[in-house]
């Protein structure tokens, strides 16, 4: 029996396919301007790569910001619900789960059954999510993936005053003009977003083990700033970007038993 979880994020769409409740295949596609079209495309590709057909899938659960734009979904669940379900499956001792995506950041405290005890969300403002780093990388004329490595080579701490991504872009430009190195600016950017994420995590309470998931978990510069700010290590599970989709797939499996 196959079940599918589909996480429709702001930038990417993640699909996880389970066979008898165990991970079987996963796929990541880009979320284009037309969400419904991108969803259809990602689902078709995911099934094709896994070598199964649509009618073999018993139940589909969607999550993510675009979860309502999945016409073939049997159920929609919130990101918080999907994340907590997914993280406990791969990391049973996780009690605090930090999810930083392109347009949203969230912190979830859960119990051993994956039940949500508390959560806090940063949404609808680019300052608290991956978009902030992306805007700054543009101002620095760097590729997004270059930001992380560069940040690790920083030698000093440069404060960033602007909170808003739009104003911070101008601040980055003036830092470049005042001969601040790109390395130092990159760290300043990551420190800024890490501090916002940390204050959100503190609102739910920090209890080990701590997991970091979502697209921004690939950014080593952000991870370094987050760990330094939290004064503790965080665990980044394998396939950290797929945890939401995995959780949705697990809920689909439970719902079809």
């Amino acid at each position, binding site marked *: 029996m196959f079940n599918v979880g589909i996480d429709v994020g702001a930038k990417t769409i993640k699909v996880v396919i389970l066979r008898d409740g165990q991970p079987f295949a996963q796929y990541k596609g880009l979320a284009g301007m037309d969400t419904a079209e991108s969803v259809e495309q990602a689902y078709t590709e995911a099934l094709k790569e896994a070598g199964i057909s649509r009618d073999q899938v018993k139940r589909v659960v969607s999550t993510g910001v675009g979860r309502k734009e999945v016409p073939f979904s049997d159920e929609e669940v919130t990101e918080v619900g999907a994340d907590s379900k997914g993280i406990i499956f791969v990391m049973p001792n996780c009690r605090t789960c930090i999810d930083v995506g392109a347009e949203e950041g969230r912190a979830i405290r859960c119990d051993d059954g994956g039940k949500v005890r*508390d*959560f*806090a969300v*940063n*949404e*609808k*403002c*680019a*300052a*608290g999510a991956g978009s902030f780093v992306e805007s700054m990388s543009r101002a620095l004329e760097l590729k997004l993936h270059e930001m992380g490595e560069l940040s690790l080579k920083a030698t000093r701490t440069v404060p960033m005053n*602007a*909170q*808003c991504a739009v104003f911070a872009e101008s601040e980055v430009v003036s830092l470049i003009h005042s001969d601040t190195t790109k390395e130092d600016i990159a760290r300043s950017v990551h420190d800024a977003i890490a*501090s*916002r994420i940390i*204050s*959100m995590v*503190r*609102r*739910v*309470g920090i209890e080990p083990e701590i997991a970091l998931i979502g697209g921004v978990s690939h950014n080593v510069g952000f991870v370094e700033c987050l760990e330094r700010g939290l004064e503790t290590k965080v665990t980044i599970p394998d396939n950290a970007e797929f945890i939401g989709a995995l959780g949705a797939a697990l809920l689909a499996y439970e719902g079809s038993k």
Partner: protein
Amino acid sequence: MIANYGYMDGSGEYYISIDTDKCIECASRACLQVCPSQLFEIMTDDYDDEVAAIKKDGRRSLKYLCAECKPATGRGELPCQAGCPNDAIKHSW
């Protein structure tokens, strides 16, 4: 005067309002002591009154600076509001 310090962004409205008429005569200045983020200061306003205000550095990040007193659940009375003898402080969120 009602002074609203803070901001509104895509995620919500984060204002601390201070009714400065109520704090002109205040002798305790408790707000300076009770805020764990030390957000308050006493300043002379444009009409030469000595009143409480939110420090300039904090005005653009209240959502984060006040987070400590606002856990996601189980929130009690805010120290700044509880500490103010004249009931001059309000939060918008």
